[in-house]
């Protein structure tokens, strides 16, 4: 094997290990953050027994899940029943492959990685970027549907039907709302989108960063709302419903298999936060701050910190909204998705298109 290929493979493996480690740690502490913040919002204290600030709580939860008896009910379709948690988990993990976290740094001049030229903080820099995310995250619905079907339980099936209808309806809005961003930045590649957001809006007198949230405010709002629905978070957590369908599609699951569903949900939220940061908040860049002159290591550290802060805000927003809003009724959910969000997304698309037609014919900016 020639050394460039070997270097690429080894680097990719290192990145996979690192990203998954960070993702799972993030998920673990995200669940703790959810419990803590929800407690604070309800004037409670939340978990505070395991270690300082309950920092060992996720560990305790994980151990508990591992030690639980692994029950397989006799009435389920065994193969699909066992495959469903993995089918929910894999798309959640795979989407993070195209999310960039910082500018690339030059590779060390000698050694194995020298032939690569630069090291990217992204697992796969593919030029269909966002499309890949849509394609893979669209598969997540299979995990839910198959879980409900294989459970051979009417509540699980109803839950999974609701989940699939909801995800399919909101995926349309999700896709359409982000098309405006592609029009503005003229690329699907996430790192290119982030790079494009370092510039300023050209025809305005004050320097306003060309962030997605500035140039596509409606698109941002629609994308955010659709993301809440896609990750089935409140106010769109219809797939689960203690009152009407027991627990939803995962009612027959316990121990590690249940934990995989939870992991998938939380990884989805973390990745969604990262993607929103890339698309609408300028990724790892700060406006009016030029980090490119810093030495490589410091620059990467700063950029990772900025990225984490921005994505962390959105991750917090998921929690914040969950503990603020009541859920929608099912018909309200569908009406909102099809009669409000979808037309708005199309209108946003048309308006953006019209703006660019005017811009290129009249020639402003």
């Amino acid at each position: 094997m020639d050394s460039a290929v070997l270097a690429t493979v080894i680097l990719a493996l290192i990145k996979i290990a690192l990203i998954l480690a960070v993702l799972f740690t993030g998920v673990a502490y995200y669940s703790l953050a959810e419990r803590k913040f929800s407690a604070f919002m309800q004037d409670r204290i939340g978990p505070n027994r395991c270690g300082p600030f309950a920092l060992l709580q996720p560990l305790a939860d994980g151990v508990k899940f591992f030690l639980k008896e692994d029950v397989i009910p006799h009435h389920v379709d065994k193969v699909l029943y066992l495959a469903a948690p993995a089918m929910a988990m894999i798309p959640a993990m795979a989407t993070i492959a195209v999310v960039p976290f910082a500018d690339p740094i030059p590779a060390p001049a000698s050694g194995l990685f020298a032939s690569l030229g630069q090291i990217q903080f992204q697992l796969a820099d593919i030029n269909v970027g966002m499309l890949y995310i849509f394609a893979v995250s669209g598969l997540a619905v299979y995990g839910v549907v198959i879980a409900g079907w294989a459970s051979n339980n009417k509540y699980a099936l109803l839950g999974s039907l609701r989940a699939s209808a909801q995800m399919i309806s909101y995926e349309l809005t999700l896709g359409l709302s982000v098309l405006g961003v592609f029009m503005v930045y003229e690329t699907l590649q996430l790192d290119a989108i982030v790079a494009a957001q370092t510039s300023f809006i050209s025809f305005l007198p004050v320097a306003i960063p060309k962030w997605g949230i500035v140039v596509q405010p409606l698109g941002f709002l629609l994308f955010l709302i659709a993301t809440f629905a896609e990750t089935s978070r409140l106010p769109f957590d219809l797939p689960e419903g203690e009152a009407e369908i027991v627990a939803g599609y995962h009612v027959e699951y316990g121990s590690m298999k249940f934990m995989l569903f939870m992991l998938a949900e939380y990884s989805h939220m973390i990745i969604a936060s990262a993607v929103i940061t890339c698309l609408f908040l300028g990724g790892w860049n700060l406006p009016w701050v030029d980090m490119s002159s810093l030495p490589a290591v410091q620059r990467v550290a700063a950029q990772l910190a900025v990225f984490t802060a921005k994505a962390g805000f959105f991750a917090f927003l998921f929690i914040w909204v969950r503990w603020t809003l009541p859920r929608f009724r099912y018909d309200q959910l569908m009406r909102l998705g099809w009669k409000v969000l979808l037309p708005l997304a199309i209108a946003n698309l048309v308006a953006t298109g019209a703006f660019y037609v005017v811009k290129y014919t009249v020639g402003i900016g």
Partner: protein
Amino acid sequence: MAIIVKKPAPLTFWERIYLPAILKGLGMTMRHMIKTLAGGGVTIRYPEQHKRVPNNYRALHVMPTWEDGHIKCVACEMCSTVCPANAITVHAEEDENPEIEKRAAFYEIDELRCIFCGFCEEVCPRDAIHLTKNYEFVTDNREGFLYGMDRLTKTGRLVSELEAKENKDR
């Protein structure tokens, strides 16, 4: 008489797009969160902090003694008679001191039977049994809840510990 049904006023545009109401709600949860983070909230963190119980709180018993350590109880069995839960067992014996004549040879309260009504305290002619406010006397076996004279004369100490804890927390 006709019943007039008042229809709610139709929603305004701002109400129909939800967003202002959502922001208001977010503001409210954020206020609560900041309040809890800043002021610690309303929770009493129990094993570390103690709720101050009222002084007439009724929990574990104590048998006071005279200054010389002699137990006050004269084994009149009033308490065991009045006890609605049959929690008290008293056996009497003769005391060497002719002025006392009778004392308890065996005195035991089953705290698991006790309903903490306080009747024993009320009925005792010699002020020889009290209910303290010490509610922290759990053990993991039933025998541990059988309080004999030896332990009942010492539970007063636990009360002062409890009060010290209460004062420390506040």
